[in-house]
């Protein structure tokens, strides 16, 4: 198992270098000049323009900039934002708890509803329930997030008044942010009603962000269950007279879980990086929105650093998934 873990771990390095190279090249390929953007309509004197570019290190050839950047990365320095002049690591980890909190809740929502829906649809193949689940998941998967989010806000927040429109906490509540996780900080605060407010602010964004993963998980679980239910060992288990529940939950589900876990792993990565739209609609102060705004401002250190940290996290989530395979299915471990 240890050997298996280390083998997987060494695959991480090429991926890591690839990410830095790709991000660096892509952001320098897109047109735009951070200095011009800052000056706006006013324009900037060419001499001052050159001076600022030199201060930013943008006057050097691209390969020099890349090696300097990668050298600093290995020293743990991701640079400072051109806009706020704050270290990227500090900026990122100020916002990351918000993204993590939202992604975690969205994933819980997706797994909690997606897994049972997929199992039941698989077991009751061809029934009305199966068709409903598949149609609903297809709709959920195809729903444009922006539209879906606004629709939820208009219906639940404005029309029914059940949930707040956007943000993480009611604006009139003032609490200290110690951990960055609103649920924890609001629970620890003295502000009456803060915890409830934090929870109610999480509902809509978690549902909106969790919709696509839910649809994917439900569909994947269903098809995986269908495969497994045809296997000999399931028939054998049934023939041995085991209860239907035991056959499904113990014999079938465990084997059906491999692709489902892969999907959950991949979707977790997507959630961490892809909460951009949800964060923008719900004014959720997370890293997705931050990276998007940084692209608009051509804040190169923020884009590079932000993507690098997220990519590293995704790489490790997938490493975790690989290790989890080995635990669930020993054949994967031994074959590799």
């Amino acid at each position, binding site marked *: 198992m240890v050997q298996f873990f280390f083998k997987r771990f060494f695959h991480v390095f090429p991926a890591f270098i690839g990410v830095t190279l790709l991000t660096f090249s892509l952001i320098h390929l*897109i*047109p*735009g*000049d*951070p200095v*011009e*953007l*800052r*000056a*706006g*309509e*006013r*324009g*900037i*004197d*060419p001499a*001052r323009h050159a001076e*600022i570019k030199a*201060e930013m290190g943008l006057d050097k050839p691209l390969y020099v900039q890349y090696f300097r950047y990668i050298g600093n990365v290995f020293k743990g320095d991701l640079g*400072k934002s*051109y*806009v*706020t*002049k*704050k270290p990227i690591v500090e*900026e990122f980890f*100020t*916002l990351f708890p*918000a993204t993590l909190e939202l992604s975690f809740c969205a994933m819980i929502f997706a797994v909690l509803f997606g897994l049972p829906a997929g199992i039941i649809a698989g077991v009751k193949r061809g029934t009305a329930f199966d068709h409903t689940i598949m149609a609903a998941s297809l709709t959920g998967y195809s729903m444009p997030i922006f539209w879906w989010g*606004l629709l939820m*806000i*208009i219906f639940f*927040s*404005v029309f029914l*008044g059940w949930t*707040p*429109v*956007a*943000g*993480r*906490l*009611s*604006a*009139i509540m*003032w609490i*200290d*942010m110690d951990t960055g996780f609103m649920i924890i900080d609001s629970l620890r605060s003295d502000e*009456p009603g803060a915890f409830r407010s934090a929870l109610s602010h999480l509902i809509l964004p978690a549902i909106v962000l969790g919709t696509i993963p839910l649809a994917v998980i439900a569909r994947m679980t269903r098809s995986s269950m269908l495969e497994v239910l045809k296997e000999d060992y399931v028939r054998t288990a049934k023939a041995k007279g085991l209860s239907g529940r035991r056959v499904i939950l113990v014999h079938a589900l465990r084997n059906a879980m491999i692709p489902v876990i892969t999907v959950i792993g991949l979707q977790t990565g997507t959630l961490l990086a892809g909460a951009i739209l949800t964060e*923008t*609609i*719900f*004014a959720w*102060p*997370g890293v997705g*929105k*931050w990276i998007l*705004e940084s692209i608009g401002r*051509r804040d190169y250190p923020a884009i590079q650093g932000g993507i690098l940290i997220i990519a590293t996290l995704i790489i490790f989530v997938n490493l975790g998934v690989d290790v989890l395979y080995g635990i669930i299915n020993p054949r994967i471990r031994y074959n590799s």
Partner: protein
Amino acid sequence: MKWHKLVSVAGIAVLFCMLAVSAQAKTKTLVFCSEGSPEGFTPALYTSGTTFDASSRQLFDKLAMFERGTTKIVPGLATSWEISPDGMVYTFHLRKGVKFHTTPYFKPTREFNADDVIFSFWRQHDKNHPYNKVSGGSYEYYAGMSMPTLIKSIEKKDDYTVVFTLTKPNSPFIANMAMDFASIHSAEYANKMLVAKTPDEFDQKPIGTGPFVFVSYQKDSTIRYQAFDQYWAGRAKIDKLVFSITPDASVRYQKLKAGEAHLMPYPNPADLAAMKTDANINLMEMEGLNVGYLAFNTKKEPFSNVKVRQALSMAINKKAILEAVFQGSGKVAKNPIPPTIWSYNDAVKDYEYSVDAAKKLLSEAGFANGFETDIWAMPVQRPYNPNAKRMAEMIQEDWKKIGVNAKIISYEWGEYLKRSMAAEHQTLLLGWTGDNGDPDNFLAVLLGCDAVGNANRSQWCYKPFDDLIKKAVLVSDQKERTKLYEQAQVVFKEQAPWVTIAHSVVFKPMSKKVVDFKIDPFGGHVFYGVDLKE
């Protein structure tokens, strides 16, 4: 007995809750649904209105200030000022008894004085100042307003008198002193941070003399302020001010509708009709201090020919553009400065829309068969041009009628600005929002000879015009300046380096609970003086 105890404890708890609720009800908290995050809290380091809203407009004061809702200059931290007869020396008499904010991170031991003024300007001016390089040390506004070359020295005559000596006379100088970059900081706080070896914190945890005290900032989420009890002009009417950062305009509107916010900036033009009919929303409007224009590159043929420029100006149906692009939220522009700025020359006659007259003039210029050109359309939305692509299409159609075939070109915004500075365009759409309400801030910055290769996108350097605006800067008397600027506008119209298209109307939707909010002509949001109805 146990039950009795339990009941009394519950009773006391309920009583406390009721007291807490009533205390909360008495606190007036205004929630402003702002559009973005500030870059920091030292206005001199940045140029965006979002940052100024969060910093200079709530936390800081300047020597001179703009009267709320107008471009009129009134005394601020300086109670009065004198200008020497040669216009080179400005003596400011400072206000006494002005206190800096007391916060958990800084407790001032003295009141505001001349040292604070010198620190605030010298940090930006002197490259060897210990704070000059802190937080990136880039002072684009200070440089953009030519302060490094204009200010020769700043001297402290006594604790309450500061003397600015200039290198040449400059009439807009007082207006510049009211701008955001001229916010006054605490020199004592700066020294404390320097001694503690944390000068960066000076720019993140602000201390000012303004009407609100900074409480906290949660990045991309919320900024909190508290009314400053000892504010020299009297305490703010609201107790707490919250900026709830919401980048999407539709969501800002939903927050306003749901009662989660009291005021929002930059509504979607498409939502305006619904806002007007909403019983809970008060939609204020005001002409913006801006101009949207089409600039001809006068260095390139055929736009070096004034007749061509005039003909193309006549060929554009501005009214149709206003209806289609601004949807009622703009007014036709005939001058390069908006009507809200003093010296606006209403006597100037705009080129009347006439295809025949335009054809005739073009033929006189030697282009009877028209020519090929381009129109650059901005990729971004701005108050002075909400949809540049649509506007470009309409101009393209209009010009086609006189035989001028234009190709529409657009680039990414940074690239657009860079290439237009390099004068790669033939004609381009752009605009400007005023900084200080002075005509010089439009006429010299956008059309002066010194601005060629910079913000003068038409590359137009015309001596009779330039002489007028240069003379106007040297004169202190506003009546005399007005005459010069009025003449300059006549010259501008004759020469037609731009087609002035529109001045936009700014809309501010707010809850009907908001009392006495005034739209800032500079596009900012000032909450001092604003109240909330129960």
